[in-house]
């Protein structure tokens, strides 16, 4: 290489390729994304945050919360759970024989071991989840056969993986979850727990405020610093303020004083409560649990 233009050309080719691939292409593919339809529903996803929560996102940014918390849930795969809810006219023995008769189907080849174990152990109680598999096709075939045989069954699609098992979410995070956010702060380090679904996990504002003021009062030996500067310690009036924190003794202010959240703390908590990725979408399907009254 005899002159600088060769270097210019090399940079143009190399960096240009990743610029087109990792900047321009995602900007076209994701930047023009529309609202996602929620599966089996007429709703769309995501929902716009409330004004207070949108302000709270800026408190989250200003305090660098993303240095210790992620907002993304991973998922290893999906599983189908086929449960038997009613036997119709047949009895358990007939059902077992019916299941055994299906073993010859090529679609069920991978799950025959699971089914054989079920046939051996089942004592006739209902409802009973008798097939859990990541082979969604087999689960579908099974459900169709049961329906054709006049049996009542229910198929649940559930996400799997360590994050899901920890209760950090019901499905993996998808690009659509962040459509309305600026800045998008996914975070890269989990010193504290993931917050993608903190609004589902811990939906009580007063508990969130208490945790921000005195993390040690909620989680023993918490590594989180106190965010006392988002609160005001002031002299209590004749009756305590309705929004004063209900602190345990060792964290309480001196007698006659009370701790009330500043607007920043309220906004931050509103944002935290708005963090809930709990709707099934095309990229990450699952069967939502039916909330019991």
């Amino acid at each position, binding site marked *: 290489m005899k002159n600088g233009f060769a270097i210019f050309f090399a940079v143009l080719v190399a960096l240009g390729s990743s610029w087109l691939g990792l900047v321009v292409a995602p*900007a076209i593919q994701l930047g023009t*994304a529309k609202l996602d339809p929620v599966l089996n529903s007429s709703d769309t996803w995501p929902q716009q945050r409330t004004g207070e929560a949108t302000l709270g996102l800026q408190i989250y*940014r200003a305090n*660098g919360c993303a*240095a210790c918390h992620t907002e993304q849930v991973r998922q290893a795969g999906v599983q189908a759970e086929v449960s038997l809810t009613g036997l119709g006219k047949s009895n358990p023995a007939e059902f077992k024989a019916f299941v055994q008769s299906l073993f010859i189907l090529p679609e069920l080849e991978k799950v025959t071991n699971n089914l054989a174990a079920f046939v051996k152990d089942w004592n006739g109680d209902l409802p009973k989840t008798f097939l859990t598999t990541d082979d969604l096709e087999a689960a579908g075939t099974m459900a169709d056969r049961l329906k054709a045989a006049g049996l009542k069954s229910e198929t649940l699609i559930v996400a799997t993986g360590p994050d899901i098992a920890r209760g950090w979410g019901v499905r993996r995070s998808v*690009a659509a979850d962040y*459509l309305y956010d*600026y800045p*998008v702060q996914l*975070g890269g380090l989990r010193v504290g727990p993931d917050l993608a679904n903190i609004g589902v996990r811990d939906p009580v504002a007063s508990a969130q405020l208490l945790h921000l003021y005195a993390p040690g009062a909620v989680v023993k030996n918490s590594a989180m610093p106190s965010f006392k500067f988002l609160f005001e310690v002031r002299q209590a009036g004749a009756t305590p303020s309705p929004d004063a924190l209900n602190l345990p003794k060792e964290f309480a202010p001196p007698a006659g004083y009370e701790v009330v959240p500043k607007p920043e703390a309220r906004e931050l908590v509103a944002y935290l409560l708005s963090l809930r990725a709990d709707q099934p979408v095309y990229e990450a399907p699952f069967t939502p649990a039916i909330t019991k009254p």
Partner: protein
Amino acid sequence: MNPAETNPDCNAKIDASCRVPLLALFGGAALWLVVGLTLALLASITFHQPEMFAGCSYLTYGHLAPAANDLLVYGFAIPAALGVILWIFARLSQAELVLPLVPFAAANLWHLGVVIGLGAILFGGSSGFTWLEFPRASAMLLGVSFVLVAISAVATFGQRKERELYPSHWFLLAALLWFPWIYSTANFLLVTTHPVRGATQAVIGWWFSNNLIFVWFALVGLGVAFYFLPKLAGRPLQSRYYALFAFWTLILFGTWCGIPQSAPVPAWLPAASAIASLLLIVPLIAVAAIVWKTLRGAGVPGGGGTFCYIKFGTLAFIVSGLMLMASACPQYSRVLDFTWFGAAQVQLQILGFVAMILLGAMNEILPRVMAKELPFKKFVAAQFYLSIFGVALFVIPLAVAGVVQGRAAYDPAAAKIWLMISTTGLLLLLVGSVLLFVNISIMTVQWKLALAKTVIAYIKSPLETSEVKS
């Protein structure tokens, strides 16, 4: 082969022409290294004592950690790299630095930008994007200053007597082109009133981080190493063709890495990054082969001089590249994602690789451009040993903490003891950085006093008779 740099008179003149801009770039860099490591140490301590700074918002971990990281990269590494690039270009061209006052002014603008950015992060004005926390005003100053320094560097490059480019030229010229492109793209698309929407922000953030921390630093570190290693070993670089191969594969594959495997984006993005990360093994092997073949049997005395700094730096580069590959491998990323392992890789890349190479180069260049010995020559070796133990004690425990944390399903208590050890590593690094700062400050003060003396002597000297009006 290194171009002939044999004429001592000529070299002394070239070195002197770099003095003013290099002092501005290096002096600020040395100061920011001390401040950045201090903030990093404070951030690390808050893990053991979360309540220590609970009262002041600007000293919580979320403020300290990004501030410390940005100071190490924008405060120390980039200005130091620019200074070293200017000097190497002048030496390789065998020409005096062109427009020396432009990089001097740019250095001051740059440091002003860092001051603004630091204040903004500490007082809640961070932009919220990793490595782009500096607000718009500060980013603007940094971008303009970089281009100004690059203009002087490229003009000096144009003065070269030998038309054929030396391998360091490729890496360092590419670095001068790389940074303005990635920094302007990222700032115009992210830190603006009309940002791109949704998860695209995260993708562009990852693209920028990887192109800065992995590719840009690799270009600078290797470019500087390929200049000094053959020179200090007294043998030509082995070989030019290996270096060309390493250069092309590094920029072609390196630039596509960086999208984490778990990213909530369309699957083709992390897949492309995983493939590129696997292919990184090619430039890593090429770099190892070059260093091995150039240094084998050279018999350079060790003792903690520049040669040791640069050898350690290239070793750190290879380890950090392997760590990057491991964390991009889907099988390992399930455990390593979101743990301290990623932080360990980034810190090794910054403190173990590029900082070590730049510190070695600065210690070599400073006495030459100032035309006098360092005030405390022994500090160079002392800083070397402090730094290698510091890097080892900082990075290895962090990587172990990452694996432990990943296996314990992110239980923060699991990694605590390892984090404590890593705090010790930071302390050693901080002590080492103070040594450089002391040397450079004394040199600056002496030089300024000497300047002042000359000026005073000039003013006081009696006018020559020819100038006296009769």
